């Protein structure tokens, strides 16, 4: 059973997508049940694979029995296992939250929604577990195409936003593919481990330099790394809340994961890859500051959160750029922390939108009085975003700060501190209005908006609790999972 976990993680949602689509034609409700069951099973497989990988080392699975480098290989090492678990659990949580949203769809559309949702999940999980560079491209496209469809469900402006993402995402995917092509031309293989083994000695080749640049730029677009973030704010703003929470929580992180995988595991930081890091460091610093500054200028809470994601991606890439084990620990922990807090924030904002129809800042006046639990979750996640102890965000920031000082890169530490303060300002603007603002009188004959329905509240509160638990018990996460997920010592 354990041997088959790597493939099960991907095949369950992939095959499930087809089944749910068919079932959805007849019974929308049953389709939702099946989709949730598949997501739960997939999450269980990912968690089991993670546990096995931490205990006994990477799980490898040869597709069709073809051993690499001829066949495609799936590898679940602790890094992939952790990432897959994160993706699968988030897929499940956001799907649970989507309940009230789905009920507003026609039954037939509900089936389609869940099918595409599973497809997106399968794509993201595929990126994470595959050990093959070209196969990664395939899953990148699967996830992107599914994401375009889901994001466009918001209607109105979301269609246009999604189309923009389609154009940029396709271009980015193509850049990545060209880069992989270059690597293939030099090494004659697509298997990640194999490429990694054959590259040393080839680093002087211009094709390798070209490949690195293409892959980094392509993935930077997919992860919305400033200044290539243009597609993100509109997409996050106009997409339906459950989709945004899932996408904002993990989709850009999966691309960041792909970057980490290629830079540190495949290229091993040889050749031009080591020259990329200083550049990435300054780009990431700019991202951390610019994202926060742009978030300050927004009046729509979802846009504030979207630009905040641009800034927070800067934190993660900053960790990659410093590149020491301590920094990568911080970056990976922040992948986890940011996924949890940003999903929590988007779910809360989505709930407010669902109840009050408001997502503008001024619409948040006094909303905490009617929805204390939702806004409580929002405040906890916001504290984590700012990096206040004892939430999770504080601890990932701590690793990044000490890593920056340790590597003698103190300007990066200053960037982190300044960005934290900026995020405190933009989060405070929302929270102050929600708690201290005067709620408008409800129109005659209507009740004031109440607390969210249980199905929406439960995942939101659960995520807020996780934000706190990840803070208090971060040492457990680091020493039991992330310590195993770090790349091998830097080779040159």
């Amino acid at each position, binding site marked *: 059973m354990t041997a088959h976990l790597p493939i099960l993680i991907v095949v369950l949602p992939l095959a499930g997508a087809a089944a749910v689509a068919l079932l959805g034609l007849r019974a929308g409700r049953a389709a939702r049940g099946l989709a949730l069951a598949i997501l739960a099973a997939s999450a269980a497989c990912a968690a089991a694979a993670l546990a096995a990988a931490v205990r006994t080392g990477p799980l490898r699975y040869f597709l069709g029995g073809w051993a690499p480098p001829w066949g495609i290989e799936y590898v679940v090492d602790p890094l992939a296992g952790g990432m897959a678990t994160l993706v699968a659990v988030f897929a499940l949580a956001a799907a649970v939250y989507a309940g009230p949203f789905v009920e507003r769809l026609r039954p037939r559309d509900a089936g389609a929604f869940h099918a595409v949702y599973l497809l997106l999940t399968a794509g993201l999980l595929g990126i994470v577990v595959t050990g093959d560079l070209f196969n990664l491209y395939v899953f990148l496209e699967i996830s992107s195409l599914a994401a375009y469809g889901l994001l466009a469900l918001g209607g109105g402006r979301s269609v246009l936003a999604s189309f923009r993402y389609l154009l940029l995402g396709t271009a980015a995917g193509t850049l990545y593919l060209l880069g992989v092509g270059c690597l293939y031309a030099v090494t004659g293989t697509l298997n990640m481990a194999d490429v990694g083994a054959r590259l040393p000695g080839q680093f002087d080749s211009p094709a390798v330099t070209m490949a690195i640049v293409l892959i980094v730029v392509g993935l930077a677009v997919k992860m919305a790394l400033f200044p290539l973030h243009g597609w993100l704010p509109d997409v996050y703003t106009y997409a339906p809340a459950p989709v945004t929470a899932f996408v904002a929580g993990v989709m850009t992180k999966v691309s960041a994961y792909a970057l980490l995988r290629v830079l540190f595991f495949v290229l091993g930081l040889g050749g031009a890859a080591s020259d990329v890091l200083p550049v990435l460091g300054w780009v990431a610093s700019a991202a951390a500051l610019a994202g926060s500054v742009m978030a300050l200028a927004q009046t729509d809470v979802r846009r504030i959160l979207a630009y905040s994601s641009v800034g927070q991606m800067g934190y993660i890439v900053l960790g990659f750029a410093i590149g020491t084990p301590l920094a990568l620990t911080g970056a990976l922990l922040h992948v986890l922390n940011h996924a949890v807090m940003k999903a929590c924030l988007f779910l809360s904002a989505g709930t407010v939108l669902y109840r009050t129809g408001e997502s503008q800042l001024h619409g948040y006046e006094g909303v905490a009085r009617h929805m204390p639990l939702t806004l409580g979750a929002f405040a906890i996640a916001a504290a984590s975003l700012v990096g206040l102890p*004892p939430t999770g965000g504080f601890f990932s*920031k701590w*690793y990044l*700060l*000490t890593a920056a000082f340790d590597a003698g890169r103190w300007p990066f530490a200053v960037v982190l501190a300044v960005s934290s303060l900026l995020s405190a300002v933009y989060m405070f603007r929302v929270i102050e209005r929600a708690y*201290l603002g005067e709620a408008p009188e409800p129109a005659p004959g209507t009740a004031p908006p109440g607390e969210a329905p249980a199905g929406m509240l439960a995942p939101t509160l659960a995520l807020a609790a996780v934000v706190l638990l990840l803070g208090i018990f971060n040492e457990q996460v680091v020493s039991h999972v992330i310590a195993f997920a770090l790349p091998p010592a830097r080779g040159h």
Partner: protein
Amino acid sequence: MPLPDRLPAAILVSLAAALLIALSGRRPNVRESWTFAAAAIKLLLVVSLVPAVARGEVVESSPLALLPGIDLHFRADPFGLLFALVASTLWLVTSVFSVGYMRAGGYARQTSYFAWFAVCLSATMGIAFAANLVTFFIFYEILTIATYPLVIHFRTDEAKRAGRQYLAYTLVAGQALLLAIAAVHVLAPGAEFQPGGFLAGRAGTPVLAVLFALFIIGVGVKAGIMPLHGWLPAAMVAPTPVSALLHAVAVVKAGAFGCVRIVGFVFGVDVLRAIGADVALAIAASITIVLASIRALGEGHLKRRLAYSTIGQLSYIVLGAALGSAAALAGAMFHIAAHGAMKITMFFCAGAIYAKTHLEQIEDLGGIGRRMPVTMGAFAVCALGLAGTPLLAGFISKWNIGLGAYQAGHPAFIAVLLASGLLNFAYFMPIVRTAFLDGEGTKPDEAGIALALPLALTSAAAILLGIFPDAGLNLYHLAWEAARQVVSPDTRGVL
């Protein structure tokens, strides 16, 4: 309960109380009983540590690994215990006053008020017992956040402005502190507070100077070192018990406490002397003492005058730390208790007057001394004490700091203390004069037992501490013990 477990218990008891308070909002008497129960238990737990610590035993507990190589680590050393004793004693007293004050005013949102108050006290205990910088920082930031809802309690525009100003000052300071702590962690991995400091020889002078500046910005905002003091007078918009306990004891003393911790237990006096930071800090503290006193002279609003007085008095502690000799440190540490008892009394007085008469401007207080003789009597006693009159608590700390200035070879700072004493007379005595000699004569009419009793008790404590500084809780002994450890770490018993 074994001694080490009492440290986390003292922190958690008010956190648990905060939850219970939040859940019993519908029944005010039940709600208030949680506050009293938690305050009493906390005080008992803290007091029960005194004999062991006074004997020189180590009481410590690390319930949780925070980060690789860094535990959530609590330790009751003499200095931390001193602060914990002051805060937990005064919380119990303040709780009586709070109930009287909030009910007399019929204010809204009392549940949230008492809940956040309890959270603040948890954080204060965490700060007092923190054994390393990361633990200290976590509770320091929790205190920052938990105080905010109390500052904006009345939800007026003025309160909201004060709240924003407060967060702006404290969050910026928090990031400065965090940068410094992260850098120190890289220079001295896993280091814990250690009498005499642990940074000697870990880095060159410029690095240490920058770090020290960041640390002082970090703790200086809460300690009100000028020009980082701006939030404190603005925060007087909070309900008076908040000003009394948080803006005279817990929050601002957390800053002053942190300052002594940084000077004595992170850098060490010798390192500061080597980089010249001791004189720089002493001068900054002196300027703050004099300017804040002058500023207090011109302030017509009673609570704001008290706030400026607090800013000046806090810098006594900073000055004592900066001078770094045994007597100066002991005086600084004892001043945490002395100033706490006296200034909380004066805020209680301001609160009792406001609850009774709704007067806040000093010029309107004519005759209030004849109307409320207990209240204004207590006020007068503590005013004399803050000015440094012998036989009152303030004299003990001031004498020691002055002596310490001489020991440290900087007798010039004695002049600052003398000038400050005169200025204290100058800005407090007119209040007392107005209260007793001006206005119409009226019959005594105090503000009610819940308001009058606390201020009578704390002013009695100010007298008691002035005559028997070791009475009851061994505060003076603890201060001297801690100071000796810092000055001559080699001869320390155990820590």
